[in-house]
């Protein structure tokens, strides 16, 4: 039996024209966080950080419909290389989700890679191939189920 953990996770990346230090520091700077942690529909974001391993942060996104609180704790702080924190919001599972931000500089740019895992940190995730396969398979069924539910 294959015991590899195929947990779902989200990976996004972007190359940005800035140094790894500048980019890394923005993740721990309340003024910067208040700017880039403001999704569409958010009037303003207020931020509190205690930037040390074990320290907590709070990012409150204030919207017309109310305030969405995001909380977490720093697990790893390795300046200009790697930042790991827990992520807790009404949209993610309790304390269980974990975000890793990695920085890789090359030719005047820095690639920032965000990995968001929905499982507890002690359940290491290797890859997510199996998970996406089953989703593709099942999404079609769900679309049918919804379609039939909508007509009743």
């Amino acid at each position: 039996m294959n015991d590899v953990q195929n947990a779902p996770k989200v990976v996004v990346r972007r190359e940005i024209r800035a140094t790894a230090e500048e980019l890394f520091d923005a993740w721990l700077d309340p003024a910067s966080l208040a700017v880039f942690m403001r999704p569409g529909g958010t009037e303003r974001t207020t931020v509190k950080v205690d930037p040390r391993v074990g320290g907590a942060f709070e990012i409150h996104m204030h919207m017309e419909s109310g305030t969405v609180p995001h909380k977490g704790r720093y697990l790893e702080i390795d300046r200009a290389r790697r930042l790991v924190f827990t992520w807790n919001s009404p949209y993610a599972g309790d304390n269980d989700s974990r975000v890793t931000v990695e920085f890789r500089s090359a030719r005047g740019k820095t690639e920032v890679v965000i990995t968001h895992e929905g499982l507890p940190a002690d359940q290491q995730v290797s890859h997510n191939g199996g998970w996406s396969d089953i989703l593709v398979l099942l999404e079609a069924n769900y679309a049918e189920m919804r379609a039939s539910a909508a007509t009743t």
Partner: protein
Amino acid sequence: MGEYRNDRLDAVLGAVADSTRRAILARLSLADARVTEVAADFPISLNSVSKHVRMLERAGLVRRTVQGRDHVLSLDAAPLADAAKWIAYYRRFWDERLKALEQLMKQKHQRPKKRKQP
């Protein structure tokens, strides 16, 4: 995006983290099946298959209907769609945050250069 019961999302993520359980779901996505029929497809004991099925039931992914002496299993894909929505939501969320971070860097780099004359 909808509000999820966090404990259920965790149960779903845990349930699909195993290849045997994913195979059981794939089997049931084709047709309902008796527990014994599902077990016959796998090179593991009926007892182990039953344990996997119970985890899937707890996650709300599999429903069991008792028809006489048979226990018939059927797939309920709705909780998986919740998990898929979680993934879609955060993929977009973090992608947009990185775009915003890039904008912030552009502004920071421009500001000092534009202040030669007050």
